[in-house]
């Protein structure tokens, strides 16, 4: 009950701070730019006959992946921005003292904030992905394979970042927390590339670096599995999967389970660190 109350406050706070409106407007702008660009480019591609020539590769899929990648990145940025200040900022301002001296338990504060932000983030990613796939379907008459699991993976990627930044906020200041989480994300991104290229070159060391970093920060791995699920099987057959947005070495379902567990453990750790600290 208290968890829901805190989640509600967290949500209202985003509204009061006009974050909600900013996100809605920028999301619409993203979709507008994407659909306009896609419309004109796709017209050229179909006119030139290129599309039918390589139809087995489903060229429209490239646009889909690019758009989805954009949403995944926005999701990560949003996850970080809405959560980086949530505990850290309230600890600094002292507001947290009036909150945790209410008749509730500290774990409820962390869980409630996580829940409120997670719902917002999930809504954002799901709606954006749905809109993007709708645009592709209307203009390009194309529906990707496995849309639902792919979207869920992108949500999971956002939740990883969100949970890490809530965890950081229990002990770090806002700025330090933002820097640490974003660096981790960047690290995972680079390691993902090293692993991709390593897979193409059959380089064991590169692949292992990628795997180790994915275990430390599984965000990028979720995107790569999402991309793998979205792209046509013919891509892999042609060995052309290492486009900027595609995936050649796809993380296994086990990795997805690991990432889900990772989120749970980080959240529990955040609760633990928050309940044991002085305020």
């Amino acid at each position, binding site marked *: 009950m208290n968890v829901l109350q805190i989640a509600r406050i967290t949500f209202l706070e985003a509204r*009061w701070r006009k974050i909600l409106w900013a996100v809605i407007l920028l999301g619409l702008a993203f979709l507008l730019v994407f659909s306009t660009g896609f419309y004109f480019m796709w017209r050229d591609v179909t006119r030139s006959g290129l599309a039918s020539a390589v139809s087995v590769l489903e060229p429209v899929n490239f646009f889909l992946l690019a758009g989805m990648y954009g949403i995944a990145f926005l999701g990560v940025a949003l996850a970080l921005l809405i959560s980086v200040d949530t505990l850290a900022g309230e600890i600094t301002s002292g507001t947290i*003292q*009036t909150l945790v001296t209410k008749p*509730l338990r500290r774990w409820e504060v962390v869980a409630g904030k996580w829940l409120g932000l997670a719902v917002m983030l999930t809504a954002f990613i799901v709606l954006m992905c749905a809109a993007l796939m709708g645009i592709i379907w209307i203009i390009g008459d194309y529906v990707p394979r496995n849309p639902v699991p792919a979207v869920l993976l992108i949500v999971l990627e956002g939740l990883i970042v969100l949970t890490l930044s809530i965890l950081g906020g229990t002990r770090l200041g806002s700025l330090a927390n933002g820097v640490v989480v974003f660096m981790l994300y960047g690290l995972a991104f680079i390691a993902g590339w090293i692993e991709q290229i390593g897979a193409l070159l059959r380089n064991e060391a590169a692949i292992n670096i990628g795997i180790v970093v994915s275990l430390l920060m599984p965000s990028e791995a979720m995107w790569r599995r999402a991309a793998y699920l979205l792209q046509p099987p013919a891509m892999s057959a042609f060995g052309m999967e290492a486009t900027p947005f595609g995936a050649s070495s796809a993380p296994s379902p086990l990795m997805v389970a690991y990432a889900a567990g990772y989120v749970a453990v980080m959240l529990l750790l955040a609760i633990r660190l928050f309940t044991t600290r002085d*305020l």
Partner: protein
Amino acid sequence: MLIETARLRKEYGELVAVQDLDLSVTEGEVFGFLGPNGAGKTTTVKMLLGLVKPSGGLASVLGRPPGTPEAMRRIGFLPEHFRFPPWLTARDFLDMHARLYGMTAEARRERIPALLDRVGLGGRGRSKLGEYSKGMQQRVGLAQALLNRPALVFLDEPTSGLDPVGRYEVREIIRELRGEGVTVFLNSHYLSEVEVTCDRVAIVKGGRLMRVGTLAELTQGANEVEIEARGLDGETLAGLARWGEVTADAETPVGTRKVTLQMTGDDALPQIAAYVVGRGAQLYALTPQRPSLEELFMRVMAEERA
């Protein structure tokens, strides 16, 4: 006992912020917790609220360990430092906190405007907290501390940043709370404020409890007496030494002599009067001086340095 601590202690590394504090606060009293900057007042309150984990010792508040929801339901708290969310209006802010107490919509509708009136913000409930002055924020904080009609209120320097009217109003609120049987734990270093509002006072210094008692208890004893007389000769003066040390001796412009005698307790006053008169002096005044809270405070502050 509403609050009881035994050897309550908090260390920050080398620094001992609160040292083996034994305190008890009874129901219905206004308890003043006095001390200089850094004495450990805020740290103590935070331990009593479960915000800070003690390094040692025991504390019970409303018969429960600090910070348990059952106790917090009946506790109000005004923190020392806070900057409330600037994008919220006072009403929304109070509404948010009232919900956390589980107050119904009806209760909130009735309670919040009444409280805003009580802290002198009646007309400003719809302004954003970011537009409030420091003193107005302080008042909102106070309203927040009273939302749940608490049985026990912790006020950490409630009048900091308030204008004289605001200070007076806070004193009035504390008086009203006492009238309602609410126990108030008041952290302050405004001695005059404590003097007029508190039933009992504790003085802390460097994390240690130096004095505790009612104002009358604390300020009695260790008196000095001022003797004003004409015709006090040296021999008479020397004879006063049996009651205490003479610390001041001066001629007044009207030709009398004013002598200050350090002594403990009031018991010897009649004997001193009889002695002075018996020695043939004309006694104009014999005035026992009770130390003010300020003098007591200063004396306590000086104690350990010596």
